[in-house]
């Protein structure tokens, strides 16, 4: 059967259809063309025509015209719509016109940089011009680097290399910075949260250096679909942006199916995610339909590869076939050559099925596949569209199946497909002025060029000067002759990682063999519960026992073991508001936003037997308390409301709401689920009332809880819908969390909060706030 036949067959299969909560057919769309923008260099037009491109899609034409008119642009279009021409054309045009012009390309990963280098070379070649693009990253051989610094017209790199390898050494890049015409930022949507906040500051440093050398580059950005591409691009680059989002590329008919695996036990448990994924992916593969499967973790990727190889090895009537080799895995950690081979196999059709982490979600060219199966909601709607875009041809039918897991977020999507198919509500949030991030980059900037006494960096002049004065107090800077100079032997960029929340990652050292080796890294908070002494640490399917955690040296020493238990640590969290920025009564509850101090302490750990989950022992953890100063949004429950609950019920309701907010909020805020944490206090020492906190898991906050405060009612509504619609009786991990019994109290509390008519309470207006609890 071909894909349309298979889809028709699935539509008639009642057991399949009983799990489908939405089958959306997106109609085919014809191409919309526009002529080449006026003034585009004739050599480029000829080169494009020689490749069979006689005209541009509308979005390409608009983007190029705007760039040529001197505007910074952000192009928002789906996968495979020819977005690279949107920036490659203006860049090559400018170098053809003025050979001294330079461009800097930023891609979030090294693999993408290599891929894009090939594409720009393809465009340059037929023009016959002497234009030299190079990748400059950690893998660039040292003997090539001086040449690239001098002669590279287009330097393709990543933010980390710009941060540590280029900006601090700008005096060796005089040619580039004096003539920098364009900065290209692809995959803009990946720069959100901590990473985006860092990048915004790296770009502020870039601006300072460009100003020093007298250049003022335009920014050409491209992004997957998010709610606020223009705002994100403007906050990242500090430049006004022209938004191009009218996609002119053609698209074939696309079927998007949301599949919620069947309930298989009495207490409402669904079929395990990986089993359902195996079943559905195999259906496509067995009909020779080229399919990409996205898994959410490296471990799941490996497990699914094994499953699907097994499936494909099974021939008819129990024979074995050699088709298992047509199934491949793809994830970070594979060697570059192996990855290139798999990418090529996908384009050539030698690879029938690939199981990938989100590594293949970004724009690496693997051609266009027919079907995409997502093992679980990838966390954000933008990601889901990106992944589904991997299946989808310019002509012909394609299919994407989203298989939902039993997490609250996945179940919410399964039950509210309208939300999914409506206009993406996700905002990519960054907070470039997060104090910790800002100060880190002010240090780097001061290393690069002395600050003047009236200079501003990100924040206003007064704020900047205050921070500089503070750094002088810390004896890192010195004010002399009206400027702030770097006064330290250290190289500040090296101590600051753009990607992780904390620059102080713990290194995991495997001591099993006489040659010790580093097998991984982990941030401080996770280290407390996963790398404490005597923890069992799981890495690539292997078990390791932590012999010792050296807290001061940030090292965990482990060795390989084979045991039948795992460990689970308790983390005691206390939270204390320091300052309230915003506060408001909403219905009978009150929402607040402000600064908090959190303190985490790992207390004990339990040893839990595999499979049976019996508790087979415990131990104490001796680690210092970890304090963090961050931003939080919190909800307080005033007396008239909490008086309606028995103490047990109240506790369950608070935990239930906290669990729901922590799971659901990342989708609305477009953040990594680990970026937000929730905790509750039955009687907060600060408010004197039952309180639910949702806070940024990064010192200083990155704007997530701030936004959550704005989305208060939307979040509570989503939480309410999730609990109400959950198939469980008494509460389950898919709604209120692992402890049962919380469903009814949680639902009641949410109903009251939202003023639902079925609640037996008085309307919101009659509830008086308790007094004397404001600071």
């Amino acid at each position, binding site marked *: 059967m071909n894909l349309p036949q298979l889809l028709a067959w699935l539509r008639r299969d009642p057991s399949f259809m009983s799990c489908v909560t939405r089958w959306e057919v997106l109609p085919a769309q014809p191409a919309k063309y526009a002529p080449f923008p006026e003034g585009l260099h004739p050599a480029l037009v000829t080169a494009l025509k020689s490749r069979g491109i006689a005209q541009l899609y509308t979005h390409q034409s608009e983007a190029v015209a705007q760039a040529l008119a001197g505007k910074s642009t952000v192009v928002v279009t789906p996968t495979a719509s020819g977005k690279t021409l949107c920036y490659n054309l203006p860049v090559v045009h400018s170098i053809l016109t003025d050979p001294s012009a330079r461009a800097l390309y930023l891609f979030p990963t090294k693999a993408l940089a290599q891929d894009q280098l090939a594409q720009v070379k393809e465009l340059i070649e037929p023009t016959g011009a002497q234009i030299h693009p190079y990748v400059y990253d950690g893998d660039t051989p040292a003997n090539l680097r001086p040449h690239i610094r001098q002669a590279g017209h287009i330097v393709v790199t990543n933010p980390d290399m710009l941060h540590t390898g280029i900006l601090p050494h700008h005096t060796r890049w005089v040619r580039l910075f004096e003539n920098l015409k364009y900065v290209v930022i692809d995959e803009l949507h990946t720069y959100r949260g901590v990473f985006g906040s860092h990048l915004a500051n790296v770009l502020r440093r870039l601006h300072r250096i460009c100003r020093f050398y007298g250049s003022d580059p335009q920014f050409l950005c491209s992004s997957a679909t998010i709610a606020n591409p223009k705002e994100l691009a403007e906050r990242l680059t500090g430049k006004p942006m022209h938004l191009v989002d009218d996609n002119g590329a053609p698209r074939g008919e696309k079927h998007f199916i949301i599949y919620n695996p069947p309930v298989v036990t009495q207490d409402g448990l669904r079929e395990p995610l990986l089993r359902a994924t195996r079943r559905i992916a195999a259906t496509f593969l067995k009909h020779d339909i080229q399919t990409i499967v996205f898994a959410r973790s490296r471990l799941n990727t490996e497990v699914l590869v094994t499953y699907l190889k097994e499936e494909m090895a099974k021939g008819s009537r129990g024979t074995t076939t050699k088709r298992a080799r047509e199934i491949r895995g793809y994830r970070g950690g594979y060697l570059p050559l192996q990855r290139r081979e798999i990418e090529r196999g996908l384009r050539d059709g030698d690879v029938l099925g690939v199981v990938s982490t989100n590594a293949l979600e970004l724009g690496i060219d693997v051609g266009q596949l027919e079907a995409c199966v997502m093992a679980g909601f990838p966390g954000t709607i933008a990601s889901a569209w990106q992944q589904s875009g991997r299946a989808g041809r310019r002509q012909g039918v394609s299919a994407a199946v989203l298989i939902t897991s039993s997490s609250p977020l996945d179940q919410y999507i399964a039950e509210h497909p309208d939300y999914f198919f409506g206009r993406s509500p996700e905002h990519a949030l960054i907070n470039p002025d997060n104090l910790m991030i800002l100060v880190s980059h002010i240090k780097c900037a001061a290393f690069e060029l002395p600050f003047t006494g009236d200079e501003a960096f990100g924040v206003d002049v007064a704020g900047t000067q205050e921070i500089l004065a503070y750094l002088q107090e810390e004896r890192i800077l010195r004010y002399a002759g009206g400027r702030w100079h770097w006064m330290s032997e250290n190289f500040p960029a090296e101590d600051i990682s753009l990607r992780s929340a904390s620059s102080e990652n713990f290194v995991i050292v495997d001591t099993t063999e006489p040659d010790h080796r580093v097998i991984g890294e982990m941030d401080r908070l996770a280290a407390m519960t996963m790398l404490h002494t005597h923890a069992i640490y799981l890495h690539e399917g292997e078990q390791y026992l932590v012999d010792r955690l050296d807290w001061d040296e940030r090292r965990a020493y482990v060795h390989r073991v084979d045991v039948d238990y795992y460990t689970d640590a308790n983390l005691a969290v206390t939270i204390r508001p320091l300052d309230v920025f915003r506060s408001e009564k909403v219905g009978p509850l009150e929402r607040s936003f402000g600064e908090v101090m959190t303190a985490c302490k790992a207390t004990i750990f339990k040893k839990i037997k595999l499979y049976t989950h019996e508790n087979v022992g415990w131990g104490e953890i001796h680690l210092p308390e970890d304090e963090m*100063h961050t931003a939080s949004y919190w909800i307080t429950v005033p007396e008239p409301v909490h008086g309606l609950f028995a103490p047990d019920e109240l506790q369950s309701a608070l935990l239930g709401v906290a669990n729901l907010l922590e799971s659901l909020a990342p989708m609305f805020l477009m953040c990594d689920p680990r970026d937000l944490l929730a905790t509750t206090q039955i009687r907060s020492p600060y408010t004197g009332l039952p309180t639910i906190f949702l806070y940024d898991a990064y010192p200083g906050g990155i704007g997530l809880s701030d936004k959550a405060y704005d989305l208060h009612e939307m979040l509570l509504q989503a939480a309410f819908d999730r609990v109400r619609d959950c198939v469980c009786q008494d509460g389950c991990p898919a709604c209120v969390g692992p402890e049962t019994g919380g469903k009814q109290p949680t639902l009641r509390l949410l109903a009251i909060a939202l003023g639902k008519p079925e609640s037996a309470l008085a309307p919101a207006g009659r509830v008086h706030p308790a007094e004397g609890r404001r600071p």
Partner: protein
Amino acid sequence: MTLRDRLRAMNAAGTRQSTSRGEGPSAAHLPAAEDSRALFTAIPNARIAVTPFGPVVSIETAYPLAGARGKVPLRTAQNAPSTGWQRLLHADARARSFSIHEAVFIDTETTGLERGAGTYAFLVGIGRIRGDEFRVRQLFMRDYHEEAALMHELIGELQGATGVVTFNGKTFDWPLLQTRAVLNRMELPDLIHLDVLHPARRLWSGVTQSCRLVQLEQEVLGTGRIGDVPGELIPSLFFQYLQTGDIAPLLPVFEHNRLDIVTTFALAGYLAQGAAEPLTAAPAGAPLPGSDLYAFGRLFAEQGDLQLAVDSLEEARRRDLPPRLLWPCTDLLASLYKRAGDYERALPLWREMADAGALVPQPHVELAKYYEHRRKEFHTAREWTLRAIDAMRQRWLLSGLGRAREGSLIRRELAELYHRLERLDNRLARAQSEAAEPYYPA
């Protein structure tokens, strides 16, 4: 919370943030530059140089050329023939225009050992020959804002220079000064650069304990320093001076900088003298040791001056060459003779090596080749081939049979030797059968 409170709270929560939590007056920022009477008292020859960019401190110290640094008279550099400098600068196309009389010796003291735009050169020493003296002029910025004046003055010193001589300056001092120039919107002239570290490594790597300047000073010049500052402390001494205004702890740094330049001057003289007249030179009061001659011989061989190379290597063998160097020296010498077609002289050297060190197969191989191709004495060639195989096998055993990289190289060479053996056996067999055939006189 005020911004300052938040900054402090952030630092407290972020544990190991800054290592230097200041005690004493916070943000203490003594105006070091404005009140530097102490400096002029402590350094009597310090003066103010006034530039369009403001003042900078300048300290001049003269070393009579009649003096010496350890065993090396300071005249050595002055008297070294220009061929010596050209040989040391062989890689530079402009070597011919270099003259020691218009060259400047440069050494910097910096605020860090990292490269990058945030590392400053707070003290730059410039040495040059002036009449009967070697003069070192040191430019010192009392605070960051005197950098532009320092750079301006430095560039003035470089005007008219034919070359710059440093120790490790190609990788460190010069690029750093270039960075400082760019940041001050100035430009350094493009000069021929002799980095003494490079020839020093050729001569003394493996001979002296290390090729650090102070080590060479001890072992080559035969002198040392008392109360020298360790280089890694220098940045913090400068920072301390900036904060306290107290010049005393910084005084040894000035001396350190001067001695580095004078030592570089003496070493450069030693090297240039040696390179010019290797057989007769005695820059440190005695003829060059064998190890120096061997290194020069290698240098000349690479530069294509084969006769001088052969002479130096022959002489090296006659002087006290350490056993470790005797072998490579002889090997190089034999190969130079072979290249010149002078088998008369190569042969005894190969024999000598073959007799001395059974484990190294090369001389055996060379002898086998010689007897096979030159002399057509296949029996003797076969004999040397067998000995080469023997040596090679022993070496393989010693290196541990499994060691992949070295092992595979040895295996390949062994295969070649077996191939040679087979060819020789064939030739011998053919010769025998030819000999067995009836003999028809012409």
